[in-house]
């Protein structure tokens, strides 16, 4: 039809040169949840190129650990990510335990699973809140934050701190579950399973929310695998892999849960995966709490460990709320690590920002990158 028209629209369009503009989003920008910058090149409203810039928060975490004894790194591991402090401390303790070659008590394993899943739920709620603001709905933000508060209260109940918990220890956990913790956590989870449906209804029943997420920023399975994205971003694109199930650590092989996987590969799929993961976490918590109860009050929860780690290299990995995190430890027989490397999931996920955002519109950039679930502490380390 175009060629029939008297005005050669297509040719004019081809000859017309439009100016492309570089927009710098961040580090002080409402969309960047933390200190990072995304430079996007836009042609009108359409994103043609993107370049993430990180490193504002680089503290030399890995180098700092070389100067500290092993137990003193635990509080530092908390500070890697304030939303996933429990999983990082867990990972660190797991790595050192593996290097020491010790096995921790059953009860500690189950308590760690409970703590991890609480951490996963509150981290996902934080993400949901961020998605809410990035899509322009403050209600979703406040409702998610309200729900998150109940899980932070559980953290308080368990170890006395809300976010930087400092709870797992090398050889177990710091303290046994407190009195009535099991009752409280079951009540919270039951309540949460109903409350989450409220938020899901608010988002999923609104065609605006769905149309903002559905059908944008497609990633294929090959792309995702090649870029090394992990976590919900990967599972939303059809990669059926979850470290908890396929490479189990602690007692995850004894827990019965499902790993949600979707083949759509768009922004909405990533959203759905995270919502479903929250429900699955509730299931895991219920099972794990029963196991903790069954072990009784006097079961050991911590073993003594030597302060010196034998020379060698070890690594351990676990499923962080945001993806695969891995720690690689080189020990030289002293009480300080020779080298400790953290593989943070977001560090890799954010490098895929270009693939995720090219072809979308400027308005979609926050909505798409909210699905990364940015956390700068662990990205820059």
């Amino acid at each position, binding site marked *: 039809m175009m060629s029939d028209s008297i005005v050669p629209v297509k040719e004019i369009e081809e000859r017309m040169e439009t100016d492309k503009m570089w*927009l710098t989003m961040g580090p002080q920008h409402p969309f960047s949840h933390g200190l990072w910058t995304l430079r996007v090149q836009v042609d009108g409203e359409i994103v043609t190129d993107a370049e993430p810039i990180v490193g504002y928060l680089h503290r030399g975490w890995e180098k700092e650990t070389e100067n500290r004894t092993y137990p003193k790194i635990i509080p530092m591991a908390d500070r890697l990510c304030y939303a996933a402090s429990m999983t990082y401390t867990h990972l660190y303790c797991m790595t050192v335990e593996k290097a020491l070659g010790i096995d921790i008590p059953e009860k500690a394993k189950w308590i760690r699973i409970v703590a991890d899943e609480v951490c996963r739920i509150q981290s996902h709620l934080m993400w949901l809140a961020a998605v809410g*603001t*990035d899509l*322009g709905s403050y209600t*979703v933000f406040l409702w998610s934050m309200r729900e998150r508060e109940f899980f932070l209260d559980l953290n308080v109940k368990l170890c006395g701190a809300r976010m930087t918990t400092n709870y797992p220890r090398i050889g177990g956990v710091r303290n046994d579950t407190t009195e009535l913790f099991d009752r409280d956590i079951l009540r919270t989870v039951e309540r949460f399973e109903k409350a989450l449906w409220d938020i899901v209804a608010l988002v999923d029943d609104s065609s*605006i929310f769905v149309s903002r997420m559905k059908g944008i920023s497609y990633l294929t399975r090959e792309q995702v695998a090649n870029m090394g994205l992990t976590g919900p971003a990967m599972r939303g694109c059809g990669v059926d892999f979850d470290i908890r199930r396929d490479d189990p650590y602690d007692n995850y092989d004894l827990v019965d849960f499902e790993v949600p996987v979707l083949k759509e590969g768009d922004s909405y799929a990533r959203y759905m995966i995270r919502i479903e993961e929250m429900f699955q976490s509730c299931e895991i918590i219920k099972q794990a709490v029963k196991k903790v109860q069954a072990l009784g009050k006097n079961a050991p929860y911590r073993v003594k460990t030597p302060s010196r780690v034998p020379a060698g290299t070890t690594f351990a990995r676990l499923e962080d709320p945001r993806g695969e995190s891995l720690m690689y430890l080189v020990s030289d027989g002293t009480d300080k690590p020779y080298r400790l490397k953290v593989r943070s999931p977001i560090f890799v996920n954010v490098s895929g920002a270009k693939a995720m955002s090219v072809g979308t519109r400027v308005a979609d950039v926050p909505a798409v990158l909210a699905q990364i679930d940015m956390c700068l502490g662990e990205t820059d380390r």
Partner: protein
Amino acid sequence: MGHILDWIVYKDTMANVYTPFESYNLPYDIGCKLWEIIGGTLAWLIDLIFPGNVVSEWLVSDAVTTLLGLIVFMLLIFIVAFVSTLIVLWEERKVLGRMMDRRGTMVGMKGFLQCVADGLKTFQKENTIPAKVDKMTYMWTVTLVIGVSVLVLCMVPLSSRWYVVDYDTGLLIIMAFFALAPFFILVSGWAQNNKYSMIGGMRAAELMISYEAPMLILITTSALLAGSFNINDIVYAQMDSVWYIIPQVIGAITFFTCAVAEAERVPFDIAEAEAELVEGWQTEYAGMKWGLVMLADYMRGSVSCSMFVILFLGGWTLPFIGDGPIPEIVFLLKAYIVFFFMSYARAALARVRTDQILNLGWKVFLPLSIFNLAVVILLKVGGVF
């Protein structure tokens, strides 16, 4: 020598030859009466000291009374409009608070004084102007955006006796001024030398183009039903028949959505989408400039609601009662109820993307408004109205 009541006689304003209004105007009347009390007392005092002087006569003359009456009239109109906007602001904060499971504003008078506190706070902020903006354009565009919003807010009549102008084309004039602001937003976006502002300004223009058309068609439809563009006529035509929301349900819903878009509120606030554009076209405005811009936003929201009330909800009249003793309050209450739904939409919905907005505007609302027009023409030809 004379008694004070010789000077204060509460003259009929309509008998005053200088009165610029063709029908009874309450704020102007209040102004004239107020001047008669003040001016009359002054005149009586002067007359006590210098009996038979000219000044006393001049102070209570028709011309001076009209002049001072008009000044008070302007102040009254503005203050009432301003306070009703603050109430709208307070209402939204409270409604949003309840919807989001928090308390909303809490400072004094159920949180109403928070608006005043915010105003004072923004007023004390430093008046920064970025170095690289085009200062002239930067300042006059924001002035015009605020000015036009205030103007259009003041021009909305609250009743048949509380109005500024009573033209036969009053509705069109209000809509024309209402549609002016996006032009200044566009220019302001260019003037700020900021990419976010520029995109925001472009989006405002985009929004205006796609929503002005269905909105004007809908206004014409209501005018067609009433047979006049005069606001009074439209309101009283609804009192005589039914509220126009009943024959044009589709039109009312479409108009409401367009009004939300016109006022640039969620879900159509793409011009100041804070997630991607920081504050859109307002990014570079700081301190009281930003405070006024935000107030202007609410003024436009308030005007949108008022237009909805005039066109579809029978204005200041109530069914079976008619004008009632205080029609102004009835009108404002109706506008607040409409605004409640706007706040409700804001709490429940997310922001729409630009291309989706254009699709909605051209592919959904324009056909709907034309369909509504067709229905109304059928009704009119069928002799129902």
